[in-house]
């Protein structure tokens, strides 16, 4: 405590950002950053440098390659899927998080485990779990047929909807956790105050709960959107033939066709969009909030 105060006072004339980069604890951040620079930033820059002159790099960049339509479709599909999955995750995750903060501590621990345990299970295992549950001879279809509600099994797997379902199932915990942290950080007195001032349940939610939990909503939304942009496993395993995401095309180009030039060009838009989202988010909410400090925009 004393050390940080001393460090802060010796650098008071510098901007807060600069100060945080030069404080004595910044070495912790820098060590992480160094790791990313060496193993992520440098290889990508090196690949661009190395492949920029290649034919396929030029072709893909100028959209004159033979896979032009396929690539464009994959991009549109990727962003559309990411957007829909994000919205679905936010709605479902908010409801779960809201429920979590409103139950007693004992029930909360149980429910929290139900959210977290799948989160720690491999995404592939979970996706196969969905096939077992929702496939033609899966649990859901068998039950519905036995109950006489349907005659033919529903086609749920290997459709676009299956991709949404699978991705929401995988990504939901991110929203639950960020929104839960935001909701949990709101002072209970604010709800009592709002009610004492005449607000019923809906008004309390609309005017107090929702605005104060927005940092968690933004954080969860951005995390889910960014991860969805790079989704690969779920669409490949349970999507239909039309559900090709850009990550799959990148993978095919790099490993099966050996066209690293094409792969790197297709990756670039994703990286740019991801970084842009981070910048915008940091501008309006602050990345530190994304990491669970939660709380409220104007509080002290």
């Amino acid at each position, binding site marked *: 405590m004393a050390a940080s105060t001393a460090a802060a006072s010796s650098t008071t004339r510098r901007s807060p950002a600069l100060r945080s980069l030069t404080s004595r604890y910044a070495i912790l951040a820098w060590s992480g950053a160094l790791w990313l620079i060496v193993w992520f930033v440098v290889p990508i820059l090196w690949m661009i440098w190395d492949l920029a002159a290649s034919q396929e790099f030029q072709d893909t960049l100028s959209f004159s390659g033979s896979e032009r339509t396929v690539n464009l479709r994959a991009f549109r599909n990727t962003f559309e899927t990411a957007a829909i999955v994000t919205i679905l995750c936010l709605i479902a995750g908010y409801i779960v998080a809201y429920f979590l903060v409103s139950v007693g501590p004992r029930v909360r621990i149980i429910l929290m485990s139900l959210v977290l345990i799948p989160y720690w299970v491999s995404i592939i295992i979970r996706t196969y779990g969905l096939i077992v549950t929702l496939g033609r001879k899966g649990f859901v279809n068998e039950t519905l047929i036995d109950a006489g509600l349907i005659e033919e099994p529903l086609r749920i797997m290997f459709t676009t909807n299956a991709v949404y379902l699978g991705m929401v199932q995988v990504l939901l915990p991110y929203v639950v956790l960020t929104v839960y942290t935001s909701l949990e950080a709101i*002072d209970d*007195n604010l709800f009592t*105050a709002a009610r004492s*001032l*005449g607000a019923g349940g809906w008004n309390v939610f609309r005017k107090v709960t929702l605005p104060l939990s927005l940092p968690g909503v933004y954080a969860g939304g951005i995390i889910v959107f960014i991860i969805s942009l790079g989704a690969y496993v779920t669409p490949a395993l349970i999507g239909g033939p039309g559900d090709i995401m850009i990550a799959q095309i990148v993978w095919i180009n790099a490993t099966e066709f050996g066209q690293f030039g094409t792969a790197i060009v297709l990756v670039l838009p994703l990286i740019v969009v991801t970084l842009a989202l981070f910048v915008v988010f940091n501008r309006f909410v602050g990345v530190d909030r994304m990491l669970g400090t939660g709380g409220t925009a104007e509080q002290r």
Partner: protein
Amino acid sequence: MTARPLAPDPRAATGRGENVVFRGVTKRFGDEVVAVDTMSLEIQAGEFFTLLGPSGSGKSTLLNLVLGALRPDEGEILVGGEPITSVPIHKRNIGMVFQNYALFPHMTVFKNIAFPLGIRRMAKAEIKQRVEEVLDLVQLSGFENRYPSQVSGGQQQRIATARAIAAEPPLILMDEPLGALDVKLRVEMQEQLRLLHRSLGVTVIYVTHDQDEAMTLSDRIAVMRDGRIEQVGTPREVYEQPANSFVASFLGDANLIAARVVRQSDDGVELATRGEPGMVLRVPSDAGSMTAGLDEDVYCMVRPQRIDLTSAHPAGPGDGDGMHNLLPATVEAAYFSGTEIRYLITTDHGDSLHAISAIEEGREEFAAGDGVIARWPVEFSRLLSS
């Protein structure tokens, strides 16, 4: 922050407050904790009423029962004659000022104060006018566009008060609203609250554990302990005629001298102190809420300010004029505090007492080790149950 006289609220009509009645109200937490124990009490319309007690005495619980944040297990609370325990909190129209103010951090000062008005679907122009009015009342005009985090603690307190009174509730609850402020500001705010209460004419139920604050602000005080009311009365009554030793020591300094009743007459009660030598103390007959039987163990209570110290004189103790109680004692310590000297003395029979004497020309001053006579008028002695 200069204190200028408060502009009278143009809408404030005196007698706008409503009375509050508690009928056998009980609130338990779990199986063992009885936070409020069969409480019956009537608070007058327009009264500034304070619930005073140590933490855990049930005062905040009582406030939350009126607010509606809690429901009583037994009994009924009536506001303006109407039972309210089954009315949901947002339909009670009771103003509340929280200890941590509970201002909405994402709203400007204007929006905070406009909150109850917007909920009531008041017209925009009317809302603007009313917010200006109450901001003027708490002397914060011009702060409309600030956020709560951008103003000081004292200003946050006043914004919270403005928000609580904006919708003109007939009853305002305050839970240690000045507890987070420093002493100087607190005294200033006490004055403001008193004036505000007078100009609004509403009923105020105020919770505090600060006895000075309670006495300064209140029309009446209820001293609470363990979920029960020990005494209700004006600040003067509870201070000068405490019902028991708890009330006596909670409100200001009190010397409690353990004694035994030896004689009762129309003139008063005669007590003998415990310990050797047993000294005789007199207490006026009307000076106690209790009637003590012969030989009963009691306390003789006297405030430190009432005790006068004089040099020990050879005539010996106990031969007073009948108008004073006298106890020979030795000064243990003397603390100088600018305007007065606070003495800690030990009587010859073994009680430790405090005496406070103002610093004046010609008044004798003592040092540790001096033999003295502690002397006070009989009329300032109180008989309390032990």
